[in-house]
């Protein structure tokens, strides 16, 4: 029995979701264990989400990868998916790569090789570190993205909308 067949049997619950499949593309749903599944044509498989442009365009261009890391489907626009697929993909994206939205910068300090950040995010207070040579990246639209040493992303969608203290901290490092 091939791996996809095994996957298909395991994914019995997923059959119900084929009704929701967009005729042109892919249907997505999450199983009870939280695993994201995708179906396209007659094939369905568990997939892992991967942002192809995590800095330049984190909300679009999502590659759905099967267990061999081969691309099963490519979602250019999340909005073209039907509602349930869209919701499943958004949940998977949130789990796959933390993307914190920074609401304030409290402190930035430097040691020999590391820069320490203390920020407020929509998910609460966070402390993280970046390498000294890793500067925040300006993304299309004027927002900033900071990637910490662990790979988590911190987004500042509109640096000008932050309070004065935050802007002062960012001024030296990002703006």
């Amino acid at each position, binding site marked *: 029995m091939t791996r996809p067949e095994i996957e298909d049997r395991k994914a019995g619950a997923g059959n119900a979701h084929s009704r929701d499949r967009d005729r042109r593309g892919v249907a997505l749903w999450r199983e009870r264990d939280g695993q994201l599944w995708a179906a396209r044509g007659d094939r369905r498989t568990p997939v892992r989400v*991967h*942002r*192809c*442009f*995590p*800095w*330049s*365009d984190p909300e*679009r*261009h999502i*590659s759905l*990868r099967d267990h061999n*890391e*081969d*691309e099963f489907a*490519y979602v*250019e626009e999340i909005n073209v998916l039907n509602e349930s697929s869209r919701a499943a993909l958004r949940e998977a994206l949130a789990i796959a790569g933390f993307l914190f939205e920074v609401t304030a910068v409290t402190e930035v300090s430097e040691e020999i090789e590391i820069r320490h950040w203390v920020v407020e995010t929509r998910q609460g207070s966070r402390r993280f570190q970046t390498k000294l040579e890793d500067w925040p*990246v300006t993304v299309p639209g004027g927002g900033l993205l900071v*990637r910490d040493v662990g*790979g988590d992303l911190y987004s500042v969608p509109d640096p000008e909308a932050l309070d004065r203290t935050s802007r002062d901290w960012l001024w030296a490092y990002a703006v």
Partner: protein
Amino acid sequence: MLAGFAAAGLITGVSLVPPYLAGYLIDKIVRPVQDGSILAEEALETAWMAVAAMALVYLVREAAAHVRLKQMSVLDEFVARDLRTELYEHLQGLSLSFYARKKTGGLITRVSADTDRLWEFLAFGIVDVSLSAVMLVGLSVVLVNLDWRLGLVMTLPVPVLCWSIFKHGERMHRLFARAWRKWSGLTDILSDTIPGMRVVKAFNQEEREKRRFGKRNNEAMGEFNRIHHTWTVFWPALMLGIHGMTMAVWILAVPRLLDPPGAPTALTAGTFVSFLLYVTMFVQPVEVIGQMARVMNRATSSAHRVFEVLDTEPEVRDASRPVLLEPVQGTVEFDSVTFGYDGVQQVVKDVSFSVKPGEMIGLVGPSGGGKTTVTNLIARFYDAVGGRILVDGTDVRMLDTGHYRRQIGIVPQDPYLFHGSVLDNIRYGAPEASLEAVVAAARAANAHDFVCRLALGYDTVVGERGQTLSGGERQRVSIARAILHDPRILILDEATSAVDTETERKIQQAIGRLVSGRTVFAIAHRLSTLARADRIFVMKSGRLAEAGTHEELLALENGIYRRLYELQGELRPTV
């Protein structure tokens, strides 16, 4: 600039006032009050006015200093920026032959360190030296006016001081020229070995490179120490001379200070105090000129190096009224073309051929046969020294080079990726391309899959020269860049050399998509990679030795292509 100079002039002028006021206070107020010739109450009002005038002088002086520092610093930052920009823009326009002659380290030094040294001199050197010279003249006049005997003691040796500073400057100029030559040698090693660190490590040459760097580092240090030795000897000697002049003033002044008042040679305490204060000021401009000789020589050496680049004319230049081919159709014709890189040895000799739009030409032949030079001439990196190269019937020397090159794509043997993201590198020739177009190009180049596997996908920074990617991956990014660029004429230079079979298959697939509908010149050593070629040109010793289809060339008895084909056939089973 004028405001800065005016402020500096004002500083010089008002600086002469406080010593005069000090002498005035002593001789006209303090001493007369002490000997009872005027009342203390009367003197006090005048004294306060003198003190207030002194305060005003200091206020004006520092306000002018603020204007001067601000104006000159800001102005000179602009000058430095413009110089760096002009230098870099000029470098962009220079022909490849210039880069073949110059070392990277030396050029980087010219754009960064040399322009900085010029800035340092422009920011403070020119103004400081001119004002110090004015100050010296002004002080000489004031000193002679105060007391001509003592004044001459201080002013007569000034020409000797200036001459010694000039001679010192000449020596320093030679020393700096030598030191910067050694410094360039040091930076050349850095620019040579850091990009080639893999080769250094592969051949276990770290110790040798350390020794090579250490030797040049020592040489550079030796030259800079020689400079320090020269100026640290000269400077105290110069100051000793000035202090000797001050001692001569004391020796001549002391007996006169003790003369009874009214004696013809008597010197008042106030005049002498003023004199001494002016003498103190005398040291400063000499010091500035002495120090500036060193700064000026560094700047002169740097200016020489910067202007050497700026004065270099590009060898490939546009015609006065360049022709725009919109769009290039892709007909390429060589008409008795001859070329040599050094102007002596010809590497392409009397080559003629004609290629139709959309035709794919394979360039084969032994190394050194002139294949790469032919493609360099097509891209107009160099101009032919004999014959003509025609594109769509127009001589390439008549074309707008920038516009023409935008319609040429090159996939080199060792693709060069810039330090930046995969996205930036694919979009290098078409910065406005959408992300969708980038993904489509990457898919066509068989690059999308491996790019999406990278932690940051297309946003992954590939490092200097794309070191974080494998050779095959770099090549596929390079092909994606060429696909997005959408050239009419495409040059493939051994694009599949040095990759494994599977990668070669992927690259060949990508090339298959890339070449469609374009005029292509593909250099290849492995003849199997030229399966799609319409015709094959065999280059040997700079000449077009054979030309024809694969079948036509195989039919030639004792043909070079046939021999190559047979050789590779013999090799195949043993591999």
